[in-house]
């Protein structure tokens, strides 16, 4: 039975099969001086703003769909390309763009990253959410405050070392 359960690992999955996106990402990464993977490109954090500007001007990515982060605390990230803790994932698309693309960059907790608000105003709320839940600081953001949690909240809940019940869970055993 265990054997049957692990059979999935051999399956490719539809996510890895989109050859057109992979080809396009590889081609694009070559032109932009970045790395590519099967759903998009990976850039160095200091090149982020330049790359996004070029993506918008040259490749018609005029719509920023989403910004989020992934915390790889204590393990190598899925690409194995870096030892930095957070992946920042930007999703771009555009009516005249060839495909939808993920743009990734890596940061560590103490570092900050350039904000995309001057290029895409929609990044304002999305970056605030990442700051709130991951504690990643965005430079030159016009109003970097917590957004979903209250201003006096302690910690950043989507970090992997943050317990699901929070730091200040009321311990009923102490009040028996």
């Amino acid at each position: 039975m265990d054997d049957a359960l692990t059979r999935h690992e051999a399956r490719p999955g539809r996510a890895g099969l989109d050859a057109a996106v992979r080809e396009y990402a590889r081609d694009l990464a070559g032109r932009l001086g970045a790395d590519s993977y099967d759903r998009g490109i990976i850039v160095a954090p200091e090149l982020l703003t330049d790359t996004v500007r070029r993506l918008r001007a040259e490749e018609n990515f005029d719509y920023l769909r989403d910004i989020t982060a992934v915390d790889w605390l204590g393990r190598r990230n899925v690409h194995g390309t870096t030892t930095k803790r957070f992946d920042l994932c930007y999703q771009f698309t555009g009516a005249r763009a060839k495909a939808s693309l993920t743009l990734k960059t890596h940061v560590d907790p103490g570092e900050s990253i350039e904000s995309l608000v001057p290029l895409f105003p929609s990044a304002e709320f999305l970056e605030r959410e990442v700051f709130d839940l991951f504690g990643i600081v965005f430079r030159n953001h016009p109003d970097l405050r917590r957004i979903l949690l209250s201003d006096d909240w302690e910690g950043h809940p989507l970090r992997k070392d943050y317990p699901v019940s929070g730091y200040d869970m009321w311990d009923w055993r102490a009040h028996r």
Partner: protein
Amino acid sequence: MRVQIPDPKSHIPADKKTMTLQMGPQHPSTHGVLRLELEVEGEYVAAIKPHIGYLHRCAEKLGERDRYVQAIPHTDRMDYVSAMSQNLAYCEAVEALLGLEIPLRARLLRVLLCELQRIASHQVWLGTHALDLGAMTPLLYCLKDCEEIQDLFEEASGARLTYSYIRIGGFHTPPSERFYTWARTLVDDLPRRIEMYERLLTSNPIFIGRLKGVGVITAKDALAWGLSGPPLRASGIARDLRVDEPCAAYDLITPRVKTRAEGDCYARYLVRMEEMHESVRLCKLALDALRDAPPGPLVADDDLVIPPPKEDIYRDMAAMIRHWIIAIRGFKVPAGEIYRAVETPRGELGVFIVSDGSEQPFRIHYRSPCFVNLGALNHMARGALLSDLVAIVGSLDFVLGEIDR
């Protein structure tokens, strides 16, 4: 003894020309717990700071804690006005990671349910939006008709609001024969009712006066601010994920994308009304296709993800073991990541999943359409009259459960 009472205005700078006004979190027109911190200059709104998070449950963190199947109820509770579309977005993303082939009947049924859900959601929006603007009658008609769609969903799924009906791989139980005949009757009757709403509102001078030219956003700004759904299409951008990135059976049943050029609240109203008519047409197409499609199961053929049918579990030892294994251990999902977006009644709901190859998602992220649309509120409503702000907030159709997640 004299008590020194501090001047209550002492913290306000002397040169401040505006007044700070808190709208919400209990304000009736915000339809939930949205607090808008307004800077008003007389009757005009100079700046808006939205404060959200009152309903925050961190569904993303809970998703990381649980196995894949267990995240489906969280998606119900994000946008409780269109739970079926939220189920669809999540399940489509996991199915894409797994590489599951969904049977045609299940894909058609998903289209039918999601389009009915779109109509129900727009009915709730229309009723409450009209109520905000002072029209009481449409609310009663809209909620009555929305209840009928909920009755139909109850017949299929057993729930009236949080369905969890769409599951990874298909559906948890097939709907009864009665469901299809009932759906046909309801869908045939819906155009008459939508036309009645239009007769009540579309050429109503008060309604037009409150909405026309209010909260205008240009096509360029709408794209830059990341609007999606009806607000984006009301600004003249024909972006609809049902056409651009079709999921379920939307590649077979293609909607005609409705746009308006004006970009004001009235255009958003018209786009949603046209979408309701379009959804009725799609429902009819889906029902016809379901009638003609060969009978068969509503779940994918994959014994590692889909539990065996209930009657087999009671009869067959191997099936019972398989059921237990899937229920207790879950199933492994190949390592990788996916961003899959679905056009819900409110816009683009994106689901970003990172899998590390185990039974639990390593990271789930929901890109909420209302959250991003709310970001544009300050840009759209700055300089508007305070009473127009109610119309603008209503026309963007916020559901706070989805904004806060």
